[in-house]
């Protein structure tokens, strides 16, 4: 890249796209201003390297957010259709086989009245929603879709993703308290405690994957799997545990205490109306999508089609491959939702601490043994 401010070490196709777009648009603006007032400093400044870089980054962020957003919408549509077929009915039918229905639902939620109870704690009420959504979007966007489609390329990439993922329970707890409703408080505490207890096995399994691949860098993990084999084979126990824990983290059935109206009377989302609730739902799906992407990166080989496939095949549209793998894992999550009832809260905690944590430690032991034994 000719631009001295180029922020990345490797090639980033979205930056390229942003660069070209800004050259086009900014160039038109600068040329127009130049026509009216020839030789002015604003046009020069608009096309200088630093400003070009800044705007390219902005467009990069926008493009990545839009792609992830559409990906999440597609996973929402997939859920509704697949759920329908499992239950012997059709899913949504209106508009492009039902996709437009999801968009229409979002618009409808947007237009609802924004009611707020009187005696709530306003600051925490507003801020926790934004923080929950914000961290969910952040987590979803931080996962790259391929070697060249990323927004950051940290060496400790997966660890940072997990750290941001883990912020949500605190915000849920505070938002449950801020609603001034004893049932929402109970709901918030339950959701927070189940999410916190399920994050620990997830972290341990992330560590075991990093042990096998030697790095936390997401690109590095995918490349390591391309050389040996998909990590689902040696770390099958870890796959199952991580999958179940991410179901719990995204508050999906069978762990969906927040939506368990029959059991709890209310959850922590009750007093949120209109678009706030819509964004919370979207945040749920974003987290589900992010965990599916993480599973596909860590266990299913990421954006490479297969370890034995040639480089040309692996390099052809890796973003689509990664998205498809993510949606396949989401299909399994939907399947689990269809088949299983809700687990009671004390049973959830039992499972999390007494079953999944020992299993994840076992998984770590297997990974360490394999690494020390020289297999990987």
């Amino acid at each position, binding site marked *: 890249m000719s631009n001295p401010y180029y922020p990345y070490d490797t090639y980033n196709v979205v930056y390229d796209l942003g660069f070209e777009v800004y050259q086009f648009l900014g160039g038109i603006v600068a040329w127009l201003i130049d026509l009216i007032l020839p030789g002015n400093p604003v046009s020069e400044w608009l096309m200088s390297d630093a400003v070009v870089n800044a705007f390219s980054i902005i467009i990069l962020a926008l493009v990545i957010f839009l792609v992830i957003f559409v990906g999440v919408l597609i996973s929402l549509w997939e859920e509704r259709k697949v759920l329908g077929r*499992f*239950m*012997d*009915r059709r899913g949504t039918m209106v508009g492009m086989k039902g996709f437009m229905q999801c968009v229409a639902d979002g618009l409808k939620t947007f237009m609802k009245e924004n009611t707020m109870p009187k*005696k709530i704690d306003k600051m925490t009420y507003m801020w926790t929603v934004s923080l929950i959504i914000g961290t969910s979007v952040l987590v979803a966007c931080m996962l790259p879709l391929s070697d060249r489609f990323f927004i950051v390329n940290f060496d400790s990439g997966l660890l940072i993703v997990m750290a941001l993922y883990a912020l949500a329970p605190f915000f849920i707890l505070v938002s449950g*308290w801020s609603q*001034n*409703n*004893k*049932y929402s*408080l109970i709901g918030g505490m339950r959701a927070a405690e189940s999410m916190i207890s399920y994050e620990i096995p997830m972290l341990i399994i992330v560590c075991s994957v990093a042990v096998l691949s030697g790095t936390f860098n997401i690109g590095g993990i995918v490349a390591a799997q391309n050389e040996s084999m998909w990590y689902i084979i040696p770390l099958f126990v870890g796959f199952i545990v991580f999958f179940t824990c991410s179901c719990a983290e995204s508050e999906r*059935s*069978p762990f*969906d205490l927040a939506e*368990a*109206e*029959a*059991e*709890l*009377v209310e959850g922590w989302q009750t007093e949120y109306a209109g678009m706030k609730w819509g964004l919370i739902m979207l945040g749920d799906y974003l987290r589900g999508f992010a965990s599916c992407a993480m599973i596909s990166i860590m266990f299913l080989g990421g954006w490479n089609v297969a370890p034995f496939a040639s480089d040309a095949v692996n390099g052809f549209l890796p973003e689509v491959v990664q998205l498809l793998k993510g949606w396949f894992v989401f299909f399994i999550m939907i399947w689990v939702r*269809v*088949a*299983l*009832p*809700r*687990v*009671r*809260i*004390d*049973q959830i905690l039992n499972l999390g601490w007494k079953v999944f944590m020992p299993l994840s430690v076992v998984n770590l032991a297997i990974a360490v043994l394999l690494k020390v034994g020289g297999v990987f």
Partner: protein
Amino acid sequence: MMVVENTIDTFDSPSEERIAKDRYQTDAMWIYMGPQHPFSHGLWTLKVRVDGEIVTDAEPVIGYLHRGWEKEAENREYPKIIPMADRLCYSASMTYTHLYCMTVEKALGIEVPEKAEYIRIVADEICRIQSHLMWLAAVGTDLGNLTIFLWGMREREYWLDLNVRLCGQRMTTNYPRIGGVRNDTTDIFDRDVMRCTERFEKALWDLIDMIDSSSIYVSRMKGISRLTREQCANLGVTGPAMRGCGVDFDLRRDDPYGKYENIDFEVPVLTEGDTYARYMVRIEEMFQSCEIIRQAVRKINALGKNAPYRLKVPSKVPAGKAFCKLEDPRGESLMYLISDGTDKPFRLKVRAPLFTNISASRPMVKGVRVADVPAVMAMIDVCMGETDR
């Protein structure tokens, strides 16, 4: 532990004693699983007193659906009460109309022709299967799985189609008449019924597999909410809830009405007394109902096309008292008729099984976690139409 009570109005329980006691205990609180509850199967309130997570007391509040049924019945001639009896409980409509017709026939002192009795048995058992399927659908939803709801309703549609072939309507069928039934069965009715029972016996295993083979479901049903035999007898609980607790009594076998004495079937009884036992009793009852239907249909075929199915009855019932009992899908229902020689009843009293079963909710729910309360109440198959009348 955050102090939560002073931020919202705390609703205390209604009686003064309990209000006084509660003020000194700040750990327990009353939760209203109120009339506007997504899965309470009808309009009623269950107030539970919760100590942490365990329920220590409960109080059901009913009456939201009271329509004055018994009073309305005093103003109508006898045939016009049959559509009203249909609507006592829409999923058990055949059994209530059958019960009403039996009561009036007893007051008149007439004997219904044999073919009509067997057709009524078939209709009753179809009603029982259809009601149990709706219960199964509700159980799945209460425990958090919508799949079973849709599959259960799909199965139920096949049985409702049989109702349509029989009399023209799916649910409030208005089929039994005083003196028999409304119309004869069609020529192909036996073929339809046999096909339906064969298909059902295979398809029900899918539904059962979803529940019984899933350790999550069973762990949420086993060992929850035990009732002993003595408690059942003292509280007046009847029906599958009672048979799950070890009381071996079924009106169809022990006090037969209609022509049930000629039908050979088994009554499932289990002794554990928990929610899982009540669930198992109802599933087995569905299989046994299939068997009963097959035998009754063979007897109808044997009686032939020309056998009488409806008797002419006088429009005025002689003065007297009569009562009849019947095994409803939910328990034992009873109707008591006092007639005064005119063509309208003087007093018609209905004993709905759910009224007593719901009032037994207090010992059923004590000691159970809050999250299990909907599951426990779903097991007695609440239908508020007959409770409130």
